[in-house]
Structures are given as structure tokens and as C-alpha cells.
């Protein structure tokens, strides 16, 4: 088996008395795409928030790229190579597409502290390139994204993730608010990441999408991982049984 890119051991998160995540043991291999599924409140988003350090875990270990890590915040996680698309859009509405793609990692003509001169042309060119590889259709990248549809904005957000993806991409319900065409666009971006060999964790409610895109499916139920199944070994009914708790006692835990 190929190298392990992300591993969690006994990852646990308690909000006061609420045990949102309990003893999660999770492994992601290089180049692998894994879906995280489960009911609302099953602990999927909580799991991602611990890995990306949006919240600090109660207990357990996160091993990323061979090293145990303790990120202080999402920024450190990003600098280490974990790109995340959050459910809430992290875009600045009044900026154009290149500015959003390069927000926080601008390119410069010359550097002079906060008054460093931006290299707008290169950023724009690289943006068009990035959009091309992701096949995202944006009428005009020089407009502020305020004037764009929800789907286009989500595509910009995902294109940003895809463009800078280095070691691991995490997407939390990337198509939840999108129409049919826009969903297809996002799925194409995900296939592009797969082709580039970039590992991904995809949180989704859409089982059709999950079976379409990923190699392995991890099922969360009541804060615990109850199943980890290769796509070929399972089907929709099987997954639903795990999600709803029909299957998934201690005996079937893989």
C-alpha cells in the first residue's frame, strides 16, 4: 500500500458534556479519495474541524505527512499543505476573482512591507490558468464576485483550493447549495484532483456523488466511525444501513 498522508488515532472532541467525536481512527493514503458520510450530527464536520484546527481537539493524535501535528489554527494547517473548502464561503465579495484566489498569498513586483507592489498581471494569468484546468466558467474574472451567482462563487472557492492544493484537500459539502450544472463542474474539479494524484476527503450527503468520485467510504454515526468500506465492496443500501444504524455494531467494525 502507498504511503499514509493523514492518520488520526483516537481523535476525540467533547463540547462540554456532548461527545461530538469519539475515538476516531482514520487513515488516508497518498492519492486516495475518501468520502465521509453520515447523518446530521454524526460528527463529520467536527472531525474535519479537528484535522484543520478550526477547533482544538479534546484528545487523540493527528499524524499528517508522517509527522504528528498540533496546528494552532486553520492558517497553520493551510501552510502545512491542507487546503479546505468550508461550508461557509471564505471569499471577499468586493474583490475580483484573482484577488480572491490569491488572498493572503499575493504575488509582488517588489516587496516593501505592507506597501509591496502587487503583480496583478501574473495573478490574473495564473487565475485564468487555474480556472482553465478546473473548467470553471466565469464570465469575467475582473468583476467583483458580489455580482456572481452562488454557484459561480462556490466554483471560485473550490478553484482556489484546487489551484493551491499541495498535499491534501478537504471539501465540506461542496455541492450542497449548487444547481445541476454547477454540481457537475465541481465534480469535474474533483476528478481533476484525482488525476493529479492529490488526496482528498469529501464530506457529502449525496451517495450518487460519493460512489461516482471516491475510492473508499467512511461512515460516521453518533460521533464514531462505524465503517470504512472500499467502493467495490459495498453499495448504496449497505452504506445507508450503516448510516441509520441497522448495521454497524462492534462486530462489523472494520
Amino acid at each position, binding site marked *: 500500500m502507498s504511503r499514509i498522508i493523514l492518520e488520526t488515532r483516537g481523535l476525540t472532541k467533547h463540547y462540554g458534556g456532548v461527545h461530538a467525536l469519539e475515538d476516531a481512527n482514520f487513515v488516508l493514503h497518498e492519492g486516495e479519495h475518501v468520502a465521509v458520510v453520515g447523518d446530521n450530527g454524526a460528527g463529520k464536520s467536527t472531525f474535519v474541524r479537528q484535522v484543520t484546527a478550526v477547533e482544538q481537539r479534546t484528545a487523540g493524535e493527528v499524524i499528517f505527512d508522517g509527522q504528528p501535528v498540533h496546528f494552532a489554527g*486553520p*492558517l497553520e494547517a*493551510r*501552510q502545512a499543505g491542507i487546503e479546505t473548502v*468550508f461550508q461557509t*464561503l*471564505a*471569499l*471577499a*465579495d*468586493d*474583490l475580483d476573482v484573482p*484577488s480572491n484566489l490569491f*488572498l*493572503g*498569498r*499575493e504575488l*509582488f513586483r517588489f516587496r516593501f512591507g*505592507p*506597501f*509591496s*507592489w*502587487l503583480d*496583478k498581471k501574473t495573478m490574473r494569468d495564473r487565475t*485564468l490558468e487555474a*480556472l*482553465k484546468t478546473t*473548467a*470553471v*466558467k*466565469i*464570465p*469575467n474574472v*475582473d*468583476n*467583483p464576485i*458580489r*455580482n456572481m451567482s452562488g454557484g459561480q462563487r462556490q466554483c471560485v472557492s473550490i478553484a482556489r483550493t484546487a489551484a493551491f492544493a499541495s498535499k491534501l484537500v478537504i471539501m465540506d459539502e461542496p455541492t450542497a447549495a449548487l444547481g445541476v*450544472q454547477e454540481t*457537475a*463542474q465541481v465534480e*469535474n474539479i474533483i476528478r481533476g484532483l484525482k488525476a493529479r494524484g492529490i488526496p482528498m476527503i469529501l464530506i457529502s450527503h449525496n451517495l450518487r456523488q460519493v460512489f461516482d468520485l471516491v475510492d473508499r467510504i467512511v461512515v460516521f454515526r453518533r460521533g464514531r466511525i462505524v465503517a470504512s468500506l472500499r467502493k467495490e465492496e459495498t453499495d448504496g443500501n449497505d452504506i445507508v444501513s450503516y448510516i441509520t444504524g441497522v448495521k454497524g455494531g462492534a462486530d462489523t467494525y472494520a
Partner: protein
Amino acid sequence: MAQPTHGLGGLKYDPAKRTRAPEWNVFGALVLIVVIFEVLNRVNGGSFLFNMRDNVDAIFNQQRLDIMILQVAITGIIAIGVTQVIILGGIDLSSGSVVGATAMIVMSFAQTALVNGNPNPKAIFGDWAMDLPVIVPILIGLACGMAAGFVNGALVAYTRIPPFIATLGMMVSARGVARWWSNGQPVSFPTESYGSLANGDILGGLTFGLISWPGQNPAVIFVILAVLFQLIMLKTLYGKRCYAIGSNEAAARMSGINVDRHKALVYTIAGMLTAVAAILLTSKNLTAQAGMGVMYELDAIAMAVIGGVSLAGGRGSIIGTVLGAAIFSVIISGFTSIRLDAYYQEMVKGAIIVGAVVLDQWRQRTRARG
């Protein structure tokens, strides 16, 4: 596979689809107002903008242009800083009071020892503070403004209190400093070099044929600062961060921008620009009084708002504010030119500020729908 509708066809640059810069609307309004006043003047046989005297060889009414640019130059410099603060998503109510406090302090270091052979009757300090090189009061003034701005910024960034409250506190306190400084007495009689800062014309009446450069040093400095900060806001990381924070502070934070430090920096720069205004104002008047700069903050905010700077943050530009200042000035001069009472001026000024915001909101809504 990619469906054809998601192909590369949509990536072409289409200038027709580009949103028109809102500054053009402001510029249109400015032209419209100028035309209205020109017509009103023509009805009475005069002209608002153009030279009507046969014995003067010029296209424009030079005197009026000089007054128009001079009367907004000093508040315009404040507005340049206020614009940045508003784009950042904040507000600065303290500018007027900081002008007052800075004016008093600066003037105390710009005094001359002998007035007509007698000791300076308004002396604040002893001989050591008399006849200092002009750079000393300038640096002290800039430091005062920056200190006040930094306190504003630090309060907003690190205590997370609303900018309205933080700068309201500074507004009251700085006015207190201005009154306390010399127990309410004016500070007067600056050195000759200090007095010439705002009263000269470094361009020496620059003339192109029948058009000459209007205005004195405050106007020149206003224009230079406006161009400088327009470039900074448009082309540098500083500007990009202002727009990003004003647009979506959480996203800016998540993208790794040090939002708190940037806020402190922007308020500090706004304070520095306020100090420039205070220096020019005291130099122009050759005196400093504790009541100087009252209501300047509102004029500056009004210029920005008329110029299309959104109080919600993230939108607007220095150019817009300069156009807003021009509209502001044209209205004042326009009413004077048709001999309308000053009381009406204020009433109309208020209506125009409200009208500009209503128009802006309306424009945003129609665009969001379209």
C-alpha cells in the same frame, strides 16, 4: 467528462460585461451640478465657471476655481484617510478633534520669539521652543496625529469595540486636550517659514496657455496625497487588505491576513493625514485655537459618502472621495455664486448626503437583482 457547457468558452475577456466603475456615476453627478449652476448663472448674465471679464485673459474664472479647490483641500486631506478607514469597514469620528489638539501642540513648537520686537505674547514654552526649524513642528504634529490614530486603531482591533465608540471617545478626549493645552487660549505668531507652508504656492501659478493651475500649497498637497493614496489603495498589498477586510473580515482572517495589525496601521495613517490637515490649517491661519476642526470629521465622511464609498466597507476609492469633495465644493461655491443664503446651503448639503447614500443603496439593489 466535461460537458460542453462547462468548457473553456466562457473564459474570454469580455469588456462589455465589465461593471462600469461607480466613480463614473459620481463624475456624471458632478458635471450635472456644474451645468445646473452654469445655467443658473447665465440666466443672470454671469457665469459659474468661465471668465466673463474682457480685461482678463483666461478661459476660466480663476478666482472661483482657486477658492473652490482651496475650501475643500484641508478637509479633503482628512477625507483621504477617512476613506481608507471606511473601506476597511470602520469609521473615524475623531478627525475634527484631532485637528484641534494637533493644531494647539504643533503651534506651540512653531512660535517665534519676537513679534515686532516684543516677546511673543502668546508664548507657550520658554526660549528653547522658539524659532525652531520648521521640520520640528511638522514632525511633532505628524507624531501627534499618528499617536491618536494608533490609539483609535488599537482600540478597534484589540478590544473589539465598535469603531463608532472608539473614535467617539477620541473625539471627546482630543477636544479636551485641545482646550487643556493652553487653558483655552489661542496659540499664535508662528515663524515665517511655518507660516509660508500653507500660504505660498510652490507651483508659482503654473500656467498652460489660458488655463492656470488653481490653488495654493494646501491644494497642491491635497492633489499629491490623493494621487499617492489612490495608487496605494489600487496597486499595493495595503489597499488589497483594506478591501478584503472591509468586504469579509472572517475570510481575510482565514486567509492569513493579520487583520488587527492592519486595522491599527490604517487608523494610524488616517491620523497622520489628519495631522497634515492640522499643520496646513494652522499655517494658513497663523494661529491655533482649541475650537479648530469642529465638524471636519462629518465633512470628510460626507465627501467619502457622496463619492460612492460604502459605509458597509469594501467599496469605494480615493478618486471617488476626491470627486465627492469636488461636488461638495461646487455646491458651496454654486450657492454663493447665485447669492443663496448660507442657511440654505447647509440644508441642501444634508439632503445631498442622504440622497447619495439612497442612490448608492438603490444601485446596489438593482445590480444584485440583475
